[in-house]
């Protein structure tokens, strides 16, 4: 076997998919923790959120983590496309009748589509907040970039596209939820981490994570929109 056998193998592509996916799960937790500060009302909430945004964009360790996150997102997407193309090639002639629902969950059969929805959301999401925060013209508050006001204005009835933004955000979180429900436990399986005692725990955690995290994410713009009505 050649030295680069591991990198060429189908299994390595799955290890990479699992590692980047599970790393991005930890990113989601961090991101969510920050976002939850948007529930704090008034000036106190504004200050806390802006300080958090400042910390996330300037603190060196976080910067390293953020580059790791960008790389993970890219690898996860590219690897996913490469795997999907290979899988398509493995069955050039499809079945006339195929009953996929008889033997596998819907999310496990639609990871590519769900991932694509998340990727499209990500582009719009980063354009709206990440790009503006890093390179755009930002309002200032107490010497800090006022991301809080930008977020509130975006998910506001005052914004002509505010409602669409809220609905789009919630739908993207729904796609993320289905993606995570399969992806979380699938990542462990791909890495060979399976045990009669721990796998049921991993599966339950996957469900909790896959439903809980997107639900909390989605609740924020809904809350912001309703409170600004």
């Amino acid at each position, binding site marked *: *076997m050649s*030295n680069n*056998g*591991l990198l*060429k*193998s*189908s*299994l*390595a*592509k*799955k*290890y990479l998919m699992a590692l980047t996916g599970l790393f991005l799960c930890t990113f989601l937790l961090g991101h969510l923790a920050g976002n939850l500060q948007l529930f704090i009302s008034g000036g106190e909430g504004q200050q806390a959120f802006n300080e958090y945004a400042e910390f996330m964009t300037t603190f060196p360790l976080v910067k390293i983590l953020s580059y790791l996150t960008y790389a993970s997102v890219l690898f996860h997407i590219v690897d996913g496309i490469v*795997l999907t193309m*290979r*899988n398509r*090639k*493995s*069955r*050039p*002639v*499809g*079945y*006339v*009748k*195929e*009953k*996929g629902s*008889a*033997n*596998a*969950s819907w999310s*496990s*059969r639609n*990871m590519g589509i769900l991932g694509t929805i998340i990727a499209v959301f990500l582009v719009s999401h980063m354009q709206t907040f990440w790009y503006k925060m890093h390179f755009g013209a930002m309002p200032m508050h107490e010497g800090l970039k006022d991301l809080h006001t930008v977020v509130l204005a975006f998910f506001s009835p005052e914004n002509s596209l505010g409602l669409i933004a809220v609905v789009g955000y919630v739908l993207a979180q729904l796609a993320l939820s289905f993606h995570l429900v*399969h992806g979380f*436990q*699938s990542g462990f*399986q*791909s*890495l*060979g*981490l*399976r045990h*009669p005692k721990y796998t049921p725990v991993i599966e339950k955690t996957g469900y909790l994570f896959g439903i809980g995290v997107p639900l909390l994410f989605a609740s924020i713009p809904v809350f912001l929109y309703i409170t600004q009505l």
Partner: protein
Amino acid sequence: MDLTLNVWRQNGPEDKGRMETHPVSGVSPDMSFLEMIDMLNDQIIRDGGDPVAFDHDCREGICGMCSMFINGEAHGPGRGVTTCQLHMRSFKDGDSITIEPWRASAFPVVKDLAVDRSAFDRIIQSGGYVSVNTSGETLDANAIPVPKPQADEAFSAATCIGCGACVASCKNASAMLFVSAKVSQFALLPQGQPERASRVKRMVEQMDEEGFGNCTNTGACAVECPKGIDLSNIARMNRDFLKASAEGE
């Protein structure tokens, strides 16, 4: 029972193929699915046509030859059964049944419902064995102690009959369940240890070379497997391959 069969017909590997509809009447609910196909062929031959080519051998669920994708599922709607163990009582009078060959680039259609599964043989040849000298005094199997749970697990991996239902059911035409069962049946036993690392590497490499797809852990393979091969085998192979690759040969 009166049935309408939609059967895949393909003259040879190069033919494009098409679905063909055949009404069959007087089917007994006690017939096996293959006996019903025999009946169909008898009818086709009497009408002067070319009978439907299909693979079959033991007709008792142990040879793994009867590869048929029936109504959207490998070996039809039953669980833990091959096509020969599927009985017509699983269907209703007046049913329309779609019958197709396994679909995978690694399993080319030979004719009609018969596919070439020699890709599996080549995977076995690449490492699915234990190199022991059998010409001299063979050791008594019981001389090497094997814990009972380990022996049971190895045995259940070894019950894989290589029918290809896992590949046929997988949306990616992945052979991970088959290969992992064949890797595991040795990896779980003391006799399999000396070649454990090289075996998994060679077999995975051959699996990739044959053009099977990637595992996306949908679990469809294990649901459709007539022998109930468990997904834990796939995890074991993922683990072993990672370890073997990290260690180098």
